């Protein structure tokens, strides 16, 4: 909320929390200095352009462009060549020992030897007016830290950056130069995406002989804590190129996940959706013992490049499941009643319709009505199961079943049976020998039977439960509640797999209905029999299918998020439960197509054939989309923890 950055060290802190509003980092740094260093130091402010310009007459200083632990950087132009350069002045407090000038010369010569497209070139160095300086290649771009802050970095870009860093590091290691301070601030990326590493070896130069914890002023100069390999903490003077590989691993982890690998950290693929093979690369680079790490930067590059060749999926940040565990959805009473009633009525109506269709309608119309029955049945089952599942998750339901054995919703089957009774009475009063009457008879009888049976089952269960007999397979709802709070992620994963099947079914019911009704219209057109030859019932059936089909299609499409490439339907690796439903539907479509093809050929009835063709086309379109968007690399399910 009310944070600010320390003007001296740049650290972020909350003044209201820190003692006397002082920057805690600076406060600690002051306390860490030896007794002989307690005199106030010179303020670390970038010198003004006017103060520096006279020292560098051959340069036209343009603007200060950066300031860090190392010193101050200015953008400049060489008057003679007109070339853009970067002038780096080393902070003066580093240069306070007599041996510094000699060491600086030595290091600068080593750095000047490095000539690689991935390393910022050094043009000149020396001392002017008490400032040690380096004249370097100017990179028109930004450092990786700023890039990470400003834009999300896609995995493809991250791999390209890491690969280039590896190439540059391998080159410098071959020249015997260890960077010692690889971090996002020291990796520059120009406008073409080319990577250039800066500040080679400066960490050692500036640390001198003082060791890892040589802290001058308010900053630390021997590497940056979180990027330092374990051995760099222990023996800062004895590190080799493998310390760079560790730091590279930290940068890589940060690029992929946006976080630092601190403490016991997760593998990258557990934080974000990335190729799991990258886990091995990152974790091997981050091995605590140098012997177990990658031994050469080029090895990292080879692995990264081979993964990059097969991966093109953008990085998708997923929410941290551990902290934002979704609660499983539940139903309110009204929704539960509506869904259960709809489910039961649909199922009973479907059975009734299926039975009476061939008795009262011609072949075409009977088939159409049986389609309606099938669709009704599936829709009813889905609605019923959804209602039942979501009711069981309600705390009041679980509590009631545990303590009393029954919940008031257990009385609902009695209501169903009663409504079936009303239906039977109505049927008795209706016109006999009419399809609608028979339908009402059958459906109402179904409701009575189902309602009565399930009411009896509940009563027995409640009676046994109240006597302490376990009637639930898992050890009571209380136990399942505990499991849920212990593993909310696993719970959600399971339910999302279930929802893929459920909404997959809803989607296919929609497709089936629509293709059936369209098939009727087209088929009759093809056969030239689009008339009242089959009576008005075929038209009713067709309209009914439309009425059921459109909402099912819309609901399934929306719930599965089919428009988005990130939908689990498209992005899940391996065979998802939706794939199974899709495959079953496609097989059904093919089977019906061959059968009805023969029928159409022999009898000239084209309706079922067109219906099957449409089903097949729809499933083929879904399969094609699935193949086109198939995740090339293995992507774990987004909720894995």
């Amino acid at each position, binding site marked *: *909320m*009310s*944070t600010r950055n*320390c*003007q*001296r060290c*740049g*650290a*972020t*802190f*909350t003044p*209201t*929390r*820190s*003692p*006397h509003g*002082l*920057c*805690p*980092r*600076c*406060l*600690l*740094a*002051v*306390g*860490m*200095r030896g*007794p002989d260093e*307690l*005199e*106030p*130091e*010179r*303020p670390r402010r970038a010198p003004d352009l006017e103060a520096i310009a006279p020292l560098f007459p051959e340069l036209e200083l343009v603007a200060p462009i950066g300031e860090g632990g190392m010193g101050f950087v200015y953008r400049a132009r060489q008057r003679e060549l007109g070339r853009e350069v970067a002038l780096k002045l080393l902070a003066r407090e580093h240069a306070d020992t007599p041996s510094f000038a000699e060491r600086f010369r030595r290091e600068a010569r080593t750095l000047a030897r490095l000539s690689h497209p991935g390393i910022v070139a050094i043009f000149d160095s020396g001392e002017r007016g008490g400032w040690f300086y380096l004249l370097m290649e100017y990179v028109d771009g930004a450092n990786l830290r700023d890039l990470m802050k400003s834009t999300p970095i896609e995995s493809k870009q991250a791999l390209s950056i890491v690969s280039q860093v590896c190439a540059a590091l391998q080159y410098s290691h071959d020249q015997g130069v260890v960077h010692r301070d690889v971090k996002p601030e020291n990796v520059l990326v120009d406008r073409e995406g080319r990577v250039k590493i800066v500040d080679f070896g400066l960490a050692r130069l500036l640390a001198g002989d003082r060791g*890892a*914890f040589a*802290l001058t002023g*308010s900053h*630390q100069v021997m590497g*940056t*804590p*979180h990027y330092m390999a374990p051995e760099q903490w222990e023996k800062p003077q004895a590190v080799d190129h493998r310390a760079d590989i560790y730091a590279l691993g930290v940068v890589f982890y940060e690029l992929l996940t*946006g*976080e*630092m690998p*601190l*403490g016991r*950290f997760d593998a990258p693929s557990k934080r974000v959706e990335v190729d799991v093979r990258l886990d091995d690369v990152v974790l091997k680079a981050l091995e605590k013992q140098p012997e177990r790490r990658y031994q050469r930067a080029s090895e990292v590059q080879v692995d990264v490049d081979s993964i990059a060749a097969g991966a093109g999926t953008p990085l998708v940040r997923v929410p*941290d499941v*551990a*902290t*934002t565990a979704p609660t499983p959805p539940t139903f309110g009473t009204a929704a539960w009643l509506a869904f259960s009633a709809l489910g039961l009525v649909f199922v009973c109506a479907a059975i009734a319709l299926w039975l009476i269709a061939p008795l009262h309608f011609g072949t075409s119309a009977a088939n159409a009505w049986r389609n309606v029955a099938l669709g009704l049945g599936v829709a009813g089952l889905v609605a019923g199961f959804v209602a039942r599942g979501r009711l069981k998750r309600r705390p009041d339901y679980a509590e009631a079943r545990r303590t009393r054995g029954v919940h008031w919703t257990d009385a609902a089957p009695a209501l169903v049976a009663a409504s079936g009774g009303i239906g039977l009475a109505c049927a008795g009063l209706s016109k006999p020998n009419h399809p609608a009457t028979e339908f009402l008879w059958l459906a109402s009888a179904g409701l009575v039977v189902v309602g009565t049976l399930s009411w009896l089952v509940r009563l027995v269960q409640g009676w046994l439960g109240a006597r302490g007999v376990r009637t639930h397979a898992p050890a009571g709802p209380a136990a399942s509640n*505990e*499991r849920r*709070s*212990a593993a909310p992620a696993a719970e959600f994963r399971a339910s999302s797999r279930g929802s893929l099947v459920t909404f997959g079914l809803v989607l296919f019911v929609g497709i089936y209905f629509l293709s059936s009704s369209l098939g009727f219209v087209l088929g009759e057109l093809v056969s030239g029999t689009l008339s009242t030859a089959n009576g008005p019932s075929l038209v009713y059936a067709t309209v009914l299918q439309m009425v059921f089909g459109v909402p099912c299609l819309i609901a399934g499409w929306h719930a599965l998020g089919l428009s988005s490439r990130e939908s689990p339907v498209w992005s899940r690796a391996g065979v998802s439960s939706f794939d199974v439903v899709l495959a079953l539907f496609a097989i059904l479509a093919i089977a019906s197509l061959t059968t009805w093809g023969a029928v159409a050929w022999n009898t000239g009835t084209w309706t079922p054939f067109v219906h099957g063709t449409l089903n097949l086309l729809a499933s083929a379109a879904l399969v094609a989309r699935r193949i086109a968007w198939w995740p090339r690399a293995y992507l774990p399910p987004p909720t894995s923890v």
Partner: protein
Amino acid sequence: MSASPPPRENFAPTRWSLVWSAGHASTPTARAALSELCAAYWYPLYAYVRRQGHDPHAAADLTQSFFARLLERNDFAAAEREKGRFRAYLLAALRHFLSDERDRANAVKRGGAANVFSLDFEAAEGAWREEPVTHETPERAFERRFAEELLARALGRVERGYAERGERRTFAVLARTLTAPGDASHDDLARELETTAGAVKVAAHRLRERWRAALREEVADLVATPEDVDDELAALFAALSD
């Protein structure tokens, strides 16, 4: 660190070495020392638990239960190897405790854990809300809060010293020179304190010396041997660095 090093003669027993030399806080003195340390550093633990994603109520509950278990039994075997440093020990023990809690998943039943301290969780939650929304890990939240707590205690120690000598005002004025020696000139400070620039310079120097001593004392209280003080300071510094 297989055995707790005995306090040496030239090193006055610190609270933390007291706890361990006594063997798992079994004596009343050791228990008092441990509970004093816990009372001082509970906010970092609360921050850790909150950052783990627990709501304020659960976090307060978990923090109290943790202290109860720490003081009653102190049986965090996993934290044994960290016993050289209070900070590392505390974090390891808390992690251990939280994973136990998760395993038992009895967060609902636990409810009325005995309150060991009267901790002002409302104020803590207020402080927590004051904090910036960051993506720092629970470990990092803990380390940072711990360092801040320690600094506040050390500075409080210095301030009390000044107050006892009746120089509260001198401290208040000079405190800001601790971290920003160049920002205010000695002349300005001298005017404010109605003294001379030379005196201010000396006073500021003395304050820095006292600060340094107080900080080291505070850290020494939390480690087992004096050799560990520098390492601990470096670790705390790392925790405060970005």
